[in-house]
């Protein structure tokens, strides 16, 4: 028997989950299980109670409303991959999700699970940062919304209380036409990225950048929005040299180091990948599917 002993709960409503979280000590929530189950199998976590969210109703929606993509916490990555609304209106997320794990893990993995696991190189975490998403959270006092910039508390730790759960995420959509790109460097397809870059660009009628979003994953403890780079691009006409110069700021970002790569290599990847993402995004402005 691999996982440690725990008590198992499979509530069917959000209030039931909140009630359990409020009363049960040392409880963990189980969403798609693609991160928590390995940790249980290896006994890296030892919860006394496991609250399975897979039978909770009303958390699996994917819908577009008033220029906002709303996705339920238990929407599977696979459902996001194949949702026409995501493909059409949020191509950044579509491109990112194809790089999340593999078919077998996307069939089970969920949006809420990815965001709460909050791996610094997870694609959906970067997408949430890139789009200035808002996370809806339910707790004993009702619901509240957290801007994604305040969602990561620290490394792999979301800013939600022990008796709260994420119920859904709102992604404000960019107007059309806009350019987008999600690029990453991983040792093998489907592996966690060492560094990833998400870029969004919008131009004015004169071909100058009027809005930019650049997000780096795998560099800091949480996704890094490169505000300095975003600001530098506003009002610019994009050229290869201009992007190459502008992206040099990424070389100065304080980058983490671990067994996979030293910080200098992450800074190098951040500089190269942010340029590639911006080039790709720029080429797609105007509706090209690239």
């Amino acid at each position, binding site marked *: *028997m*691999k*996982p*440690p*002993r*725990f*008590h*198992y709960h*499979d509530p069917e409503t959000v209030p039931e989950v909140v009630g359990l979280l409020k009363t049960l000590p040392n409880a963990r929530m*189980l969403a798609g*299980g*693609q991160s928590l*189950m*390995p940790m*249980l*199998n*290896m006994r890296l976590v030892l919860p006394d109670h*496991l609250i*399975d969210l*897979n039978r909770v109703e009303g958390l699996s929606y994917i819908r577009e409303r008033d220029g906002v993509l709303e996705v339920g916490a238990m929407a599977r990555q*696979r459902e996001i991959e194949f949702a026409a609304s995501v493909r059409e209106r949020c191509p950044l997320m579509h491109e990112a999700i194809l790089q999340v*794990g*593999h*078919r*077998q*893990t996307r*069939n*089970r993995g969920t949006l809420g699970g990815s965001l709460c696991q909050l791996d610094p190189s997870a694609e959906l975490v970067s997408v949430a940062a890139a789009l200035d998403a808002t996370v809806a959270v339910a707790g004993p006092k009702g619901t509240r919304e957290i801007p994604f910039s305040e969602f990561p508390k620290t490394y792999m730790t979301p800013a939600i209380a022990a008796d709260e759960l994420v119920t859904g995420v709102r992604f404000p959509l960019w107007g059309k036409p806009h350019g987008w790109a999600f690029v990453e460097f991983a040792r*093998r*397809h*489907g592996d966690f990225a060492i560094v990833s870059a998400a870029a969004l660009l919008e131009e004015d009628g004169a071909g100058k950048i009027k809005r930019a979003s650049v997000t780096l994953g795998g560099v800091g403890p949480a996704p890094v929005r490169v505000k300095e780079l975003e600001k530098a691009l506003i009002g610019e006409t994009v050229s290869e040299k201009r992007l190459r110069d502008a992206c040099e700021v990424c070389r100065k970002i304080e980058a983490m180091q671990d067994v996979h790569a030293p910080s200098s290599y992450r800074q190098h990847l951040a500089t190269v990948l942010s340029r590639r993402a911006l080039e790709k995004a720029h080429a797609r402005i105007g509706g090209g599917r690239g």
Partner: protein
Amino acid sequence: MAESRNIAVTVNGKRHEQRVEVRLTLADFLRQQLGLTGTHLGCEHGVCGACTVLLDGQSARSCLMLAVQANEHEIATVEGLAPSPDTLHPLQEAFRDNHGLQCGFCTPGILMTLVEFLRDHPDPTEDEVRVAISGNLCRCTGYQGIVAAALDAAKRMRKGG
């Protein structure tokens, strides 16, 4: 006393009612409680893909699910592929003919992955096949035979077996 529950699971079309410990993984349930040892366990943390089964028709790692979560769901394992004891599934035929396996450890997971993939993509390109099996590790074949087998199987299945 460890917590346990009664579950009812349909595996390869047959309904099983069993009592399981709540911490039992689906993979261990299939292998140890139902005796269906065709589903292999390599890494047990979701990396190797050997334990891939179909859950309601979709491929999933059975080491990353609890047996209790399969309650009232349908599971398909490699044992259910062949239509009869002396006839192989066209995908299995293609693996045999194209040297798609050597030791065979990874094969059940790859077959179940490809069953879903070829159902959804009956006429795939080589690149699409390579992406489809990217979540399955094989240490013998170098993948060439597996890719060839998948493409050959797609052709056979389009012709109707």
